[in-house]
């Protein structure tokens, strides 16, 4: 159609302006600021990055992010996959799915309070008010301070809350993909005498690989930015700090904008690498 360009400018203009102002330019500016000192006055080269990679407490945040990356991603994706396959076989699938998916609707701050309460600790002998410690005591154990015992117990406790929130997301996407696998393919394998595990391993699983890749990528990109859960549940105390919380602290507590920017750039770099790998594999698969 003739004269489309002015129309296009009118349609795209507001979005381009807003996206440039809120995303593109600030991102570039942050990369630039990461080479300057705390007030962004003097150029300091790679000092901020050197600090990130040598300071002990930032190192701890890196380690925690890595723990989140492995345990959270594996936990959400595997539980989502397990549930997608299992729920397909029962009649109350819709109800069960709603239950697992429900935490996705509420805020991470709210979920943080829910799990802080689940992990609530009372000394041995006192009545427990947290469900988890009540279970431990009922089974004959001693109550534990789940959010304080470092380094494994409290970090895994936080990650558990994260898995509780995000498993429903993985479930919904994997379940849709699972239902997309032609049923006669599965039936044919069963008629040939394959057991359920073999059918899953050799037929269903390969069909799910592309979706698993998408879901895993999404979880990795999410987990690098994890903030709310840690902020509400421990505020990074007792060795539970992660990168996003560190950046918040650098900004508002230490007032060091150079270091805060450098943390942000690290987050950006990880997200970009994961995305590029994913797009490349996607293209390869399309090309085959």
């Amino acid at each position, binding site marked *: 159609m003739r004269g489309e360009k002015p129309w296009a400018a009118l349609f795209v203009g507001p979005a381009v302006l807003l996206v440039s102002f809120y995303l593109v330019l600030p991102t570039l500016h942050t990369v630039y600021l990461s080479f300057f000192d705390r007030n962004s006055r003097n150029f300091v080269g790679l000092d901020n990055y050197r600090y990130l990679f040598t300071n002990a407490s930032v190192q701890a945040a890196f380690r925690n992010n890595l723990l989140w990356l492995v345990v959270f991603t594996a936990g959400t994706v595997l539980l989502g996959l397990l549930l997608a396959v299992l729920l397909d076989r029962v009649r109350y699938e819709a109800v069960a799915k709603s239950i697992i998916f429900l935490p996705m609707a509420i805020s991470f701050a*709210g979920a943080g309070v829910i799990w802080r309460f689940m992990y609530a600790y009372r000394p041995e002998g006192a009545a427990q008010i947290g469900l988890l410690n009540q279970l431990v005591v009922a089974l004959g154990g001693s109550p534990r301070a789940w959010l304080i015992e470092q380094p494994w117990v409290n970090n895994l406790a936080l990650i558990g809350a994260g898995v509780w929130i995000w498993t429903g997301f993985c479930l919904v996407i994997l379940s849709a993909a699972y239902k997309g696998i032609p049923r006669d393919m599965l039936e044919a394998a069963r008629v040939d005498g394959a057991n359920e595990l073999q059918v899953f391993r050799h037929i269903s699983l390969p069909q799910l690989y592309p979706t698993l890749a998408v879901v895993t990528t999404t979880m990795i990109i999410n987990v690098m930015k994890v903030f709310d859960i840690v902020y509400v549940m421990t505020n990074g105390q007792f060795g539970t700090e992660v990168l996003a919380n560190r950046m918040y602290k650098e900004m508002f507590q230490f007032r060091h904008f150079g270091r805060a920017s450098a943390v942000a750039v690290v987050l950006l770099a990880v997200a970009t690498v994961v995305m590029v790998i994913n797009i490349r594999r996607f293209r390869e698969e399309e090309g085959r």
Partner: protein
Amino acid sequence: MSRVTPGSVMSRALLHLIIVLLCLVWLLPTLGLLVSSFRPAHAVSSSGWWTVFATPFDLTQYTLDNYRHVLFQDGMARAFLNSLIITVPSTALPVLVAALAAFAFAWLRFPGREVLLLVVVGLLVVPLQTTFIPILRLYSQWGAVGTFAGLWLAHTGYGLPFAIYLLRNFFAALPRDLFESAYIDGASPWTAFWRLALPMSTPALASLVIFQFLWVWNDLLVALIYAGGTQEVAPLTVRLSTLVGSYGQEWHVLTAAAFVTMFVPLVVFFALQRYFVRGILAGAVKG
């Protein structure tokens, strides 16, 4: 699957057992929060919430005091209002701006279209953290920190890439003939957008609106950064995290406060779950 053997009965039982156990793990934490929020302070701190199920219909063990306390003494009522004031424009604005852009990406030819679209898709993975410092500085210079308008525009900018991505895919799948015949009849792109594209996209728009609404309602980080630490504009999530800091272990207050923040999302979820799920399936990249 159809043959009933002792082995298959066993494995069916195991299947149900696993699913029911997992469902309990997902349900009980929220149930515990809900029950505790209606129990008096001394009961919450001296016994587990599950003890109410010994006599679930003894209504004297429940109270609304916690809600009265958090709403009117701890400022949750004000925060609730703030959340509404923040969320409604922060949903309407990005959806409208994104719809316009998505229409152009799908149906108008203009130079740089492919590149721009690629940039938008690439922005889907940019962590918001990389934008905070420059924008916060501009906001402080302009006095936009701690204003509703500052939050509306920030949520609009941040929400656009996903919204454009989702709507463009939907618009692009509409039949081409439709627009061509409209143009032949003398319709402008403006008319085609409002009269054809938008009305035919209500399912996609509904998904997007719900998604963005919940996203903004549940947001903590953006509000923490730009709301400027005052109670004037702080939404529920910020207020809740402040209460966690000041009340620590007073669970009767915290459980009620948390439930106040969850109330609207839960209503939206139960009423419109279908659209929410569809939105997630359509744009599995959003973080």
